[in-house]
């Protein structure tokens, strides 16, 4: 008997075009299914339909039928399905209910009515299983995004679900953390339904692959057939990065010398040195919590170093890793034009450059997460700085758009120096002329990143 069946489901959010169109498939117990597709194609909506959040939580027009272990989701509320289906959403910061990690993991268990004496052991076991046992007593507001994502994953695992729904679960994690999370998910014994833009790790680890586009399933196949289909029909999803030619280097635009920085007495950046010249794109990589973002902010001039020196020559612009910070105006073009004196014409050009042409009148909050990321990018690119600092610019961005972004950055590289903070090894290899690794193990808070800073060609970025 199938664990879940989706029969001819169509769905549209209120006052919107259909997000799902006549979708049908089934899931077997213990099966792992990877869902690929462009941003805004309906992947997250599909997950929500399996959790009964569509239509119960969102409203809208729903037709067809979703059955999970014989329960029709039209007649079963999401909370009643929580003993069978656990969901990990895209943004961990929007999922946290409690103030302490252990209580956060226990929250779902309490709701399910688990016996009180079992709650704490199960919560702690789930945290240990994802390598977050040491975080149990920590306040949730102190955690980094990567740590929060692991905690939210532990909260889902603790429920011992039959079906685990993961919506871009590794978007905030470094490669090792991402691999570990995917491994834990696949070993949990539950059926796994996962959407992911960084699909390389999962392509051969899952049983089936769905490709969703414009609300329709275009592909439902095993990994071998899926790879062949992707190579033929959507090559960006399986493309290998090609080595970049040596850049023509010009003057130094930013120079970081033995800079240090601490948050509340905790040293985050400890005397690394870094130089970026006009004409080159440098990828800054490293594990979660290694100080990459802080170093990027020091380079961009958003933070002042406590020790050492940062010298910039020319104008710097910084893209935050949270696209929600670029939603301050009522129209997309006004948002982009904000940094260029309200020049809407230039704003339209930059929107088109990131693939948002035609959406200039849309309210930024009506954009999907991938579109928001590109809006944020356009807002910063429009400034045309001498130093461009991009902090995780590919969160929620699909491979096709990533390839276009890489092309855009490479084409404009001679005009400026670019510092790119990213966990996305493929994107780093496709975009950067060289890669600089910062920090050691995130589990070793005493590791000095000055000792571990290493530089190499971007082509070897995936050798970690």
């Amino acid at each position, binding site marked *: 008997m199938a664990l879940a069946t989706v029969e001819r489901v169509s769905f549209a959010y209120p006052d919107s075009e259909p997000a799902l169109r006549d979708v049908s498939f089934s899931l077997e117990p213990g099966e792992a299914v990877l869902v690929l597709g462009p941003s805004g194609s309906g992947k997250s909506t599909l997950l929500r339909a399996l959790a009964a959040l569509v239509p119960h*939580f969102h409203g809208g027009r729903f037709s067809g039928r979703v059955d999970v272990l014989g329960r029709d989701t039209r007649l079963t509320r999401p909370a009643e399905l929580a003993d069978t289906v656990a969901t990990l959403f895209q943004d961990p910061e*929007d999922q946290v*209910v409690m*103030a302490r990690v252990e209580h956060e993991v*226990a*929250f779902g268990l309490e709701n399910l009515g688990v016996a009180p004496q079992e709650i704490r052991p199960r919560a702690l076991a789930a945290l240990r299983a994802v390598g977050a046992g040491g975080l149990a007593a920590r306040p949730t507001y102190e955690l980094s995004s990567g740590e929060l994502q692991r905690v939210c994953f532990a909260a889902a695992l603790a429920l011992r679900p039959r079906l685990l729904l993961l919506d871009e679960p590794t978007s905030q994690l470094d490669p090792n953390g991402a691999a570990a999370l995917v491994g834990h998910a696949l070993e949990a014994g539950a059926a796994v339904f996962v959407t992911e833009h960084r699909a390389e790790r999962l392509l051969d680890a899952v049983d089936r692959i769905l490709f969703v586009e414009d609300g329709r399933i275009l592909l439902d196949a095993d990994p071998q057939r899926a790879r062949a289909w992707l190579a033929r029909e959507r090559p960006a999803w399986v493309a290998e990065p090609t080595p970049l030619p040596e850049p023509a280097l010009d003057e130094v635009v930013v120079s970081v010398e033995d800079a240090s920085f601490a948050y509340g007495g905790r040293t985050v950046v400890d005397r690394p040195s870094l130089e970026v010249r006009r004409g080159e794109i440098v990828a800054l990589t490293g594990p979660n919590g290694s100080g990459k973002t802080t170093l990027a902010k020091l380079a961009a001039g958003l933070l002042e170093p406590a020790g050492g020196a940062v010298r910039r020559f020319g104008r710097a612009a910084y893209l*935050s890793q949270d696209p929600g910070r670029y939603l*301050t105006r009522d129209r997309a073009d006004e948002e982009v034009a904000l*940094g260029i004196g309200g020049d809407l014409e230039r704003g339209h050009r930059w929107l088109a450059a990131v693939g948002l042409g035609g959406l200039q009148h849309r309210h930024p909050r009506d954009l999907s997460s991938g579109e928001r990321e590109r809006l944020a990018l356009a807002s910063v690119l429009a400034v045309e700085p001498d130093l461009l600092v991009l902090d995780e610019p590919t969160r929620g961005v699909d491979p096709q758009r990533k390839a276009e972004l890489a092309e855009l950055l490479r084409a404009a590289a001679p005009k400026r120096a670019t510092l790119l903070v990213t966990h996305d090894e493929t994107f780093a290899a496709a975009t950067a002329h060289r890669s600089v690794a910062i920090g050691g193990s995130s589990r070793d808070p005493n590791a000095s990143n000055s000792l571990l800073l290493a530089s190499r060609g971007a082509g070897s970025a995936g050798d970690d």
Partner: protein
Amino acid sequence: MSPGPAAALLGAAAVAALLSERLLSVAAIAVVLLGVCLHGPKDRRALYLWGTFVAGFWVAVLTPLLAAEGSHYLWEGPTVPVLGPLGLTAEELEAGLLSALRLVAVGLAFAAYALLLDHDRLVQAAGFARRSALAVALATRLVPTLERDGRGLLEALHGRGVEVRGVADHARLLSPLLAGSLERGLNLAEAMEARGYGRSGATRAPAIRGRLDRPAVVAAAALVLAGALWL
């Protein structure tokens, strides 16, 4: 101390400040609460203290100007159309100070609650009112979340060379901040529902008992209240 009794003590202090008519009693409560707040995390307490004292300052300044009571004039000003005769009496000054101190005391009690108490344990200890306690705990988190989001917005604007200066520029950020918090609230509600919130038959993890017995602290809260009223 357990967070439940601590919350009761803070509540008693706030109620005592609101009910007391004596300037010195309210001032004493405010000073004690300020001392408590200073034990809070340095990086988080500034927002609460700043907000409380700025609000208190404006209440102290505006109340005497807008009120019309008392006969012991300290200053007699001109008659302004619509507003009438302007003046400042000792009674108005005292009323303004009392209102400001009450506001400061209540603000500081809230700050101490937000900064120092373990809200998870409050929710656990809430008994039949668990949903209400959870709603209050989530609402309490709004202040630091808004502050963090505000800092993030300013940083993103600085990151593309946009300077935010003056009250008008900052005020323009209020709308996106509120819209962002509404969106966050919706996402959180969705995640809570997906995690079984609202099902019947919920249990709770065993709570850790505090060092002080509840009856003793409840008695202390009653004493604070009575003491403030008597003084």
